[in-house]
């Protein structure tokens, strides 16, 4: 059976304009405009990146710092619009980009569960159904009525991971999230991701740990300064990557 393509990135380029000076205020802007001194330096974080991901695949993005991995994930998550090219997504996307980004420090963990769920597009009923599971997975039973500002960073990421992985999204985006928590929790997370892969979820995975990538992904795209250096099966690309 032909697998359907769930993510299709075509010639994606992302350009950031680094204003040589930053204007936060109107006066400067107008003065510079009049003098025609508004100059920008261009920075291409991604240039001409194309790849496809089929349903059920798990794609790893590897590369050094600043190679454009996170930018790529952000364009797929819909946070950034690519300057050129298109990203076509077929299905629901659950982003795990930075754990705890959606938390409000003053609200309790319980209230944050609902707030965060809503950010991911779940309504209250769905969250109520998933609530028990979230509490159990994050192992925070005693702390659900504590404001999140009193949480340790490990607790925050446990809670966030538990919320982000409820249900079975079509596409799960993980950016360096498994590096949090103790190894016991990391293992639990990996198991959960594995279970999602088995259930047919497509995974997009970014990590600097080549072992993790090997363990989870079957396809890899290797980015280098915004260009695709190599893509293909996990084994082959990892081989090359570790020798570079």
């Amino acid at each position, binding site marked *: 059976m032909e697998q359907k393509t769930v993510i299709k990135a075509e010639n994606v380029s992302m350009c950031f304009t680094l204003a040589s000076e930053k204007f936060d205020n109107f*006066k400067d802007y107008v003065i510079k405009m009049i003098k025609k001194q508004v100059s920008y330096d261009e920075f291409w974080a991604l240039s001409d990146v194309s790849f496809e991901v089929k349903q059920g695949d798990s794609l790893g993005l590897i590369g050094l710092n600043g190679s454009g991995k996170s930018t790529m994930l952000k364009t797929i998550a819909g946070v950034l*619009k690519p300057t050129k090219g298109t990203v076509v997504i077929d299905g629901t996307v659950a*982003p795990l980009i930075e754990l705890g*980004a959606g938390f409000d420090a003053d609200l309790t963990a319980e209230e944050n569960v609902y707030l965060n769920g*809503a950010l991911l597009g779940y309504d209250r009923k769905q969250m109520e159904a998933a609530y028990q599971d979230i509490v159990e997975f994050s192992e925070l039973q005693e702390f659900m009525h504590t404001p999140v500002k009193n949480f340790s960073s490990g607790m925050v990421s446990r809670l966030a991971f538990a919320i982000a992985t409820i249900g079975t999204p079509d596409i799960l985006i993980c950016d360096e999230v498994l590096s949090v928590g103790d190894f016991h929790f990391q293992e639990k997370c990996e198991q959960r991701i594995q279970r999602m892969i088995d259930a047919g979820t497509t995974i997009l995975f970014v990590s600097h740990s080549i072992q993790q990538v090997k363990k989870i992904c079957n396809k890899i795209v290797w980015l280098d300064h915004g260009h695709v250096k190599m893509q293909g099966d996990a084994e082959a690309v990892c081989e090359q990557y570790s020798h570079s």
Partner: protein
Amino acid sequence: MSGYIQNFLKFRPLLNELVSRDIKIKYRRSVLGVLWTLLNPLFMMLILSFVFSNLFKFNIDNFPLYVLSGQVIFNFFSESTTNAMSAIIGSSSLIKKIYVPKYLFVISRVVSSFINLLAAFTALLAVMIFTRAELHWTMLLVPIPLVLLVVFSTGVGLFLSAITVQFRDVMHLYGVFTTALMYLTPVIYPLSLLPDTVKFIVMLNPLTNYLSMFRDVMLNNNLPSLLGVVVGLVEAIIVMVIGLYVFYKKQDTFILNL
């Protein structure tokens, strides 16, 4: 278009959560909690009516009601637009990381302000009953000025929030602007007191129109004039369209300027 509607429906629960967060955070750790939304306008009314009925004598019967009704309307406008202005900047950590329709942050601020408006409105009703003011049937028409005002304020809020991302100056400037605007709206003084030139300027202020409509139905037992409603509607729609347009054009660049 249907895509937009679908997207909105998907994120509708988020609107509820954002509004309830705004309200919860605002009154957390205060003993009287939500009661403050009721008490604040009442205290302001007491101060203003004390000052103005002793220092300056305006020829208005039931001055406390006059001031309070003016405050209810003006405070909603200034609160909702001021809050909406910082909506995008305040949610920057979220906007940078996950996809959410960004206008929701602005709308949620306006909705929370509207809930405050309802509380203040209850205070107004309480004062009306307490001072034995006549309650008229025209009161049932009060949704007309309120809806127009909400649309108008949302438009202004969308516009401000988009502009503020690029130029933070707007935040500082707007405080001054609202103070000036308050004196250009007949919140405290009666319109009849003004010399013709000033009156002309005050009449140009869209809030004057909404406020007099509100007072007409609430206090004066008058039907709102057709001309007033039409002008108010046109102003609200124009401002809303401009707000939406600017917001829509700018929203993809927010992330680069946050």
